[in-house]
């Protein structure tokens, strides 16, 4: 996705269909590309070309896509270690994303950050954070800046169900509410922490939505596998924040098709659970949706094959890419570009 393109589409609902064809194709394209890219990441891992850890969003594409399309250029994204999807959804390149997972010089951070810290300031992705909960207050700070400077962007913060039980969640939500900050908190409830079901460790049914009232916020639970529903909810929350209406928290019900991280076979899932959710695969839902709205099969498959092509090209570029030069080791610790802590 080019960020220019989003701007061209505009974010206002068009005509009778509040979402409109062009935006729908964009939602589809993003989901397809994220899916293909994540699958590729999995393959590369099996080929031992991805070192360290990685956390896929397979099955959760609709959330990233819905927000990616609803957000304007300038709106800021704050992601977790499970942030490939959100980074792509703002327009970052597949090379940049996969290259970082492969820890090559072509990666978004040239391999210095790794899969858990994807950042693309060019695309307003202000980082992926690997300490659960930490980025919620940080997103508040970005929103505070917008409010203080009178800038019209909104900060959007993605996190998991598990993050709702850590202290920083609570502090951030209260902070955002009392200062009426233009920030949208997006909880992707995929039913699990790493391996532990969220229901076993959470006092309420909806880990995010059932906490909203603690901060004077509305309780919002949506189908996180339906990109249209995500888009509409995102659009409304963004508009509210932009208009000075303060923060929102949105709980998106979804499911990850793969394990928590690279090697996790996800044996802790009850039999049949994955199968149920596969029926509600966001891509199945959305292909169906496009058909309902009269999109021709070949338009759909054009997007799909273009995505495959892009993934192949990106993979090839990443495989060919060198590692970063070793002088990067001590670069950019401080603003002077170096690491000198003494004279």
């Amino acid at each position, binding site marked *: 996705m080019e960020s220019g393109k989003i701007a061209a589409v505009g974010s206002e609902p068009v005509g009778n269909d509040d979402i409109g064809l062009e935006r729908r194709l964009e939602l589809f394209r993003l989901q397809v590309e994220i899916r293909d890219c994540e699958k590729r990441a999995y393959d590369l891992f099996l080929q031992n070309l991805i070192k360290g850890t990685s956390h896929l969003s397979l099955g959760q594409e609709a959330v990233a896509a819905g927000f990616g399309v609803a957000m304007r250029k300038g709106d*800021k994204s704050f992601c977790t270690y499970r942030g490939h999807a959100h980074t792509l959804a703002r327009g970052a390149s597949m090379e940049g994303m996969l290259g970082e997972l492969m820890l090559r010089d072509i990666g*978004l*951070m*040239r391999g*210095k*950050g790794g899969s858990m*810290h994807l*950042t*693309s*300031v060019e695309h307003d992705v*202000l*980082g992926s*954070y690997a*300490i659960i909960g*930490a*980025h*919620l*207050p*940080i*997103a*508040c*700070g*970005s*929103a*505070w*800046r*917008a409010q*203080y*400077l009178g800038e019209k962007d909104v*900060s959007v913060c993605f996190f998991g169900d598990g993050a709702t039980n850590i*202290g*920083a969640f609570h*502090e*951030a939500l*209260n*902070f955002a509410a*009392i*200062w009426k900050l233009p920030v949208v908190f997006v909880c992707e409830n995929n039913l699990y922490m790493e391996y532990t079901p969220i229901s076993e460790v959470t006092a309420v049914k909806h880990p995010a939505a059932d906490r909203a009232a603690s901060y004077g916020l509305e309780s919002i639970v949506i189908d996180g596998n339906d990109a249209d529903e995500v888009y509409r909810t995102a659009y409304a929350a963004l508009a509210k924040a932009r208009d000075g209406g303060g923060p929102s928290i949105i709980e998106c019900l979804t499911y990850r098709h793969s394990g928590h991280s690279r090697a996790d076979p996800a044996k802790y899932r009850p039999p049949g659970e994955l199968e149920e959710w596969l029926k509600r695969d966001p891509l199945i839902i959305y292909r169906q949706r496009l058909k309902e709205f009269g999109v021709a099969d070949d338009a759909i498959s054009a997007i799909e094959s273009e995505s495959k092509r892009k993934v192949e090209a990106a993979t090839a570029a990443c495989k060919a890419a060198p590692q970063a030069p070793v002088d*990067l080791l001590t*670069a*950019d*610790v*401080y*603003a002077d*570009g170096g*690491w*000198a*802590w*003494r*004279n």
Partner: protein
Amino acid sequence: MAELTYRDAVARGIAQEMERDDRVVFLGEDIGKAGGVFKATVGLYEKFGPLRVRDTPISEQAILGAAMGAAMTGLRPIAELMFADFLAVCFDYVANEMSKLRYMTNGQLSCPLVVRTGNGGGVRFGAQHSQSIENWTMMIPGVKVVAPSSPVDVIGLMAAAVRDPDPVIFHEHKALYATKGEVPDGEIVDVLGIAKILRPGSDCTIAALGLMAPRALEAAGVLAREHKIDAEVIDVRSLVPLDTQTILGSIAKTGRLFTVEENPRLCGWGAEIASIAADEAFWDLDGPIVRITTPHIPLPAADHLEDLALPSAARIVEKVCRVLNG
């Protein structure tokens, strides 16, 4: 030129920077309307208003996190941690977030902010409100760390910290708030990473900082008058960047190094400086390097015990004498 308390210097330093740059904002608990629990920020709320001087809930993680998010996107926040000890409840932001941001993002993001802390002991506040935590911050790569000991340094280093493009942890010393010093009129801007020789001397080097700087200076006076020991006293001021040149240069001259720090003993900044000297100045040394520290204990509340715990001028004198005169 005017006499100013260390406390008033804090407010003046912050005001100087807020006047200069609209992007400088200030947040913390009870800092605004109430002027801070140490009254070190009196008048800022009245001068700069509620949008730039913001009272927060008791949410230290949100305070540092919000400061960081604002810094990343264009503001220049100053965040207060009322007592330095409270860094423990938001340590993630120093240890894992603001310090690593620039590096992890390959320089895409930066985090120009200042975290002020009410550091140090001597005020009978007990174990959870009296710690010197310079080493908690010094040990983390990616932050800068300063600890002024006089009003003029407070203003100058505050300006340097606010203007610095990296996160700076600014340790004010609670027991110094009431102390006074001469401060020139007009804008004062210092430089991070420069130690100050408070007293030149030839027999030994004493490196100190914060409340320990005036105590080391007092000890040096006694050492000269009563023991014929001519000590060079260095106020380290900035732990990161560390002015090793001044320290090593002094050792080259004196041949002996003492460090005086309020941290409990293990892994304090004294150990870092001692280790640097033991490596790089080994052949300049005429005898053991001696660290004078708070013993490795939590701080007691009782006045007579706390006074025993923190290095005093008398203890410095006694130790230096014993070591140098055998």
